[in-house]
């Protein structure tokens, strides 16, 4: 018997073909999109700003003096050079005095010669970050209640607009996103119900969608807000507006979900799952709803900026965030107070609007980036 020895041929080690999930393909595409990444990074920074708003803000949310009313205090420029010697030193602001102009009967603010030095890390209003971490340290400030830094000027009660804007970011950035997430859940659930039960349930849900779509959006929003009394608890008012925004937006998604599920139901993989004895719940949640992932991610990310805009509009009309809380939209409301012609005496009240523009643009960049990342035709 001859022993046949075979030389072990060295089979080249094949690199295992890594199958990529759709999400990882999309992530790879997203990584190539510089603009979308910039948008995403900025959004993260904005949220960090919102979380640490109490620390970043030189003043509290609703701090104003009833004795020394600083209504529409102009922005205080920050000086670095001593006005007499010209030497550089600790940054400071001038203390402002008010005087009634006897010709125009307008209160005029004038810087006095008194300097208030600005310190970093001053103790001031106490706060709790995320409702948990207590503190009273502020990034910067003068530490003097009657000589504050007004980087963005003051608003109608004399509160620091920068502090209000920073606090407002907490509301503006939460309501839009939360409303979209909730309406996405409602939309998916309603669409799935309509497709699953069919018949009567289907008719009722689709009719409801139609009716909601047939009433002009702004009127519907105002109408729904009027169900709740105007002077409710300010915190409750925020939840109300969140709920209303979530309630009016689910129709489109429900319709698409229903259509998609009805067409998927006839496909082989669903029949296969059914033949294997999978329960209805399992088929729905593990097999049918995941076909919606791409659509949901893309529409959600594009619905967020739209909802932020709607929220700002409602707050501007005075039916969104109410005192003492503020959102960027409600801060813009004071631009209208006292007639439009007084706007050019205090242009700084427009600044919160640019926060809206910036946020919406970042979300839009991110949303467009995600849409392109999931679109097979745009792959490179």
């Amino acid at each position: 018997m001859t022993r046949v020895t075979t030389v072990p041929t060295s089979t080249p080690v094949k690199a295992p073909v890594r199958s990529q999930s759709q999400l990882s393909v999309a992530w790879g595409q997203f990584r190539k999109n510089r603009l979308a990444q910039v948008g995403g990074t900025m959004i993260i920074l904005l949220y960090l700003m919102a979380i640490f708003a109490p620390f970043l803000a030189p003043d509290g949310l609703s701090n104003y003096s009833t004795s020394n009313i600083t209504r529409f205090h102009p922005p205080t420029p920050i000086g670095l050079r001593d006005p007499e010697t010209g030497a550089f030193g600790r940054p400071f602001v001038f203390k402002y005095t008010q005087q009634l102009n006897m010709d125009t009967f307008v209160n005029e603010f004038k810087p006095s010669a008194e300097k208030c030095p600005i310190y970093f890390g001053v103790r001031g209003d106490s706060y709790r970050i995320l409702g948990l971490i207590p503190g009273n340290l502020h990034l910067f400030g003068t530490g003097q209640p009657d000589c504050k830094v007004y980087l963005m000027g003051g608003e109608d009660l004399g509160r620091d607009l920068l502090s209000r804007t920073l606090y407002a970011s907490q509301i503006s950035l939460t309501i839009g996103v939360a409303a979209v997430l909730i309406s996405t859940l409602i939309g998916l659930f309603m669409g799935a119900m309509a497709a699953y039960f069919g018949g009567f349930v289907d008719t009722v849900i689709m009719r409801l969608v139609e009716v909601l779509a047939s009433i002009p959006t702004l009127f519907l929003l105002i109408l729904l807000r009027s169900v709740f009394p105007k002077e409710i608890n300010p915190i409750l008012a925020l939840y109300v507006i969140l709920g209303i925004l979530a309630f009016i937006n689910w129709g489109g998604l429900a319709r698409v979900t229903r259509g998609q599920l009805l067409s998927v139901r006839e496909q082989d993989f669903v029949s296969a799952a059914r033949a294997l004895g999978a329960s209805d719940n399992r088929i729905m949640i593990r097999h049918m709803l995941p076909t919606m992932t791409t659509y949901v991610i893309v529409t959600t990310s594009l619905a967020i900026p739209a909802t932020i805009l709607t929220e700002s509009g409602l707050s501007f009309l005075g039916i969104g965030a109410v005192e003492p809380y503020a959102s960027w939209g409600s801060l813009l409301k004071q631009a209208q107070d006292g007639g439009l012609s007084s706007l050019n005496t205090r242009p700084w009240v427009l600044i919160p609007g640019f926060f809206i523009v910036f946020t919406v643009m970042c979300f839009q960049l991110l949303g467009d980036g995600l849409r392109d990342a999931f679109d097979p035709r745009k792959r490179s």
Partner: protein
Amino acid sequence: MIPFLLRRVVQSIPTLFLASLLIFFVIQLAPGDFLTPAKLNPNISPEQIASLERNFGLDRHPIEQYLLWMKNMIFNRDFGLSFQYQQPVLDVAIPRVLNSLWLVLLNLIFFYAIAIPLGVYGAVRQNSLGDKAVNVVLYFLLGFPSFFLALIVIYFILQVRNATGWDIPINGMTSNGFDAMAPLEKVWDVLKHLLIPALVLAISDAAGLTRVIRGLMLEVMRSDYIRTARAKGVSERTAIWKHTFRNAILPIVAGIGGLLPAAISGAGLTEVVFAYPGITPMILDAINTQDLYLIAGFTVLGTVLLVIGNALSDILLAVVDPRIKVG
């Protein structure tokens, strides 16, 4: 065409009916009614309040109120009485609806006059410097809430006014002494007041549509029949406007129906900023005074406009796209 229209009307009846039901009962849910402030007033006796309640039909069961309201609306075109103005709702509402319509119509003209040329230009000269510049500006505009854009425009107009004394109207719908003007002068006066709000609205809305038109044009321009048309020697102008544009705008025409009510509700914020006597300022007012039938009347009118708009867009679609048969 007529059977088609009839069918549209019949189809929209259940939607209208359900919408009116929803509107009415949402209002019923609201706490208090128009008489709540009167009840708190010690100078008004309970008897007076009871008689007021009877007059306004507020003492009846909500379902009865609803049925009565529907009956009067359908058969007598009577939308009820506005408590605040002490006039029939239609008399109060119709002038406001017309005011809003003028604003929206002018706005739509500007809207298309801006969006179509820019969108087509962006597609024809794709990736040119002009296209990129337009894209950047539009992207920036997408982030502006319409009321914020309006405030900024007002700020600059005020600056111009202070510097040059040039009086650009930015407030209301008419100037002082409007009643004494000649008819043509009146039209011109209203137009002057409409100009800035309509333009602001159009600019803030056009950003979205321009991007859509550009995308659709690009998609159609790649198709075979455009190449065929060019190969046959069709002029560039015909290739773009007749072959590409007409096909590209089909999805937009399909959406025109929603545009009218969307524009009316979208114009709301701008109306508030410019103190324009349109629908939204009055609705906000009516909400504050719990003027039930006025709110309901406006919302019903808005819903009717939407249904009409949808029917119109179906007809338009049939005009633009001969593949769709009407009737």
